[in-house]
């Protein structure tokens, strides 16, 4: 039982950590992009 | 015909340069010998090490090969000679074959010098009657190593990490060659304890594997090399 739990736990942990990483990174990148777009807009005007 | 001539000119150039400095050959040779000595210290010299010796032989050859392969494109890259080669050869694959053949030659020379030393150190039974099979195994292994090694060396010379990159890229790719070469070398070294029938059936399997992977590696190198060197 312990092995079973450990295997499922480990596998999902890895996958969800990865999903979490991607979502987090995407959010951060989205923020950066918005920021830069604003900077460009300000520069142009 | 012209194609072949160009490859040979390139090989000849590499040999002349290597004979002048001997840096690649010397370092490979010393490295192989050092590995063998270190192996002896690390594992002792009991009867159990004999079964490991075919593995030792190939591991030391493989790492020596990395040492040499790292140097293959250093001279070409440093003074921009690769550009010069691109300008004067009709085809990128001329450069690939020239480089692969010269690293094959240097590796083979180092191995053939190291082989007697290895025999003296680690082999108890004479395998002289089957030596020619071992030579074939060595050569087939070298073809694979230098075919894929030359390609990966050209890749790694283009990275920031340069020579740190080659082992990381090279070792996992060469595994099939390593497995087949170690198995067949082990068979040759212990041919007397394996029955003749079994020896031949098994050695054929392993040699076939070597040949198949050699062909694949050469083909892939030939087809993709131009994408590595172009800019």
């Amino acid at each position, binding site marked *: 039982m312990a092995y079973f739990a450990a295997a499922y736990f480990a596998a999902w942990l890895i996958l969800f950590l990865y999903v979490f990483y991607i979502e987090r990174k995407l959010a951060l990148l989205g923020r950066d992009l918005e920021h830069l777009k604003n900077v460009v807009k300000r520069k142009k005007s | 015909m012209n194609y072949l001539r160009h490859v040979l000119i390139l090989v000849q150039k590499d040999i002349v340069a290597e004979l002048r400095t001997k840096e690649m050959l010397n370092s490979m040779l010393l490295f192989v010998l050092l590995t063998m000595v270190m192996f002896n210290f690390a594992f002792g010299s009991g009867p159990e090490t004999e079964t490991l010796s075919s593995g030792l032989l190939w591991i030391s050859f493989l790492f020596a090969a990395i040492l040499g392969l790292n140097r293959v494109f250093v001279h070409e890259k440093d003074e921009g000679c690769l550009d010069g080669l691109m300008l004067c050869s009709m085809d990128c694959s001329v450069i690939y074959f020239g480089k692969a053949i010269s690293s094959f030659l240097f590796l083979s020379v180092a191995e053939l010098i190291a082989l007697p030393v290895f025999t003296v150190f680690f082999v108890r039974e004479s395998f002289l009657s089957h030596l020619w099979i071992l030579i074939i195994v060595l050569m087939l292994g070298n073809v694979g190593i230098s075919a894929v090694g030359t390609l990966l060396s050209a890749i790694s010379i283009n990275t920031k990490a340069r020579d740190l990159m080659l082992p990381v890229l090279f070792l996992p790719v060469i595994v099939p060659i390593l497995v087949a070469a170690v198995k067949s070398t082990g068979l040759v070294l212990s041919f007397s304890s394996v029955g003749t029938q079994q020896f031949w059936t098994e050695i054929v399997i392993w040699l076939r594997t070597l040949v198949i992977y050699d062909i694949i590696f050469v083909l892939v190198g030939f087809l993709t090399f131009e994408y590595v060197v172009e*800019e």
Partner: protein
Amino acid sequence: MPEVNLLICVDSLSKRFGRRKVLNELNLNICKGDFLTIVGPNGAGKTTLLRILSTLSGFSSGCITINGVDIKENPAFVRKKIGLLSHNLLLYKDLNAYENLRFYGKMYNVSLLEDKISELLEKVELDHRKFDVVRTFSRGMQQRLSIARALLHDPEIIFLDEPFSGLDVHAGRILDGILEDLKKGCHTLVMTTHDIKKGLVHANSVAVLSGSKIAYHQRENLPDLDDFNQIYSDCVRNKR
């Protein structure tokens, strides 16, 4: 411009390094027998342009023909016709002067190679070091040998990238002589430099590469040094 003599034709050439546009919609025509000098500030893309012309570098868009042949489609044809003297020496430091030239000569299928090598070594005044390893040469000598290497296969077109950098006065004079000979021999030469004065000496055609474009191109009736200096600084300022 007389169309018949058109040798190299560059049409809206663009080259991007990653995201950076090094060359942008660049147009340039070079006629047979021209000596074109391209000047420009550092990082303007002079070296890149020469590397593209000599098929060593790819480009993002545009079209280049040499003698009417598209260089992307048939690079081998172009490579036989050109000699390149680049920043890099393209020499093997562990081979001696003679071996270097012999290697390249054989790769280019040069006939009467031995005579050619002796002749060229004499020309660049390296006769006495024929069998010395290139590693032992001074920078200027290596550069001279590199010149010999570039001329080995009698190329019709010669690209020179900053040929005078690293040359002492004497070696510079040797190079001057060679360039004059080549000009008389109806070779087409393209030279880049950031030394405007040196650039105007031989040229019959000058161009300024700035802001990833050819900002100025004049063939025959060249401006004198002061005028050209003025033009040059205008070009550079406009693009900044």
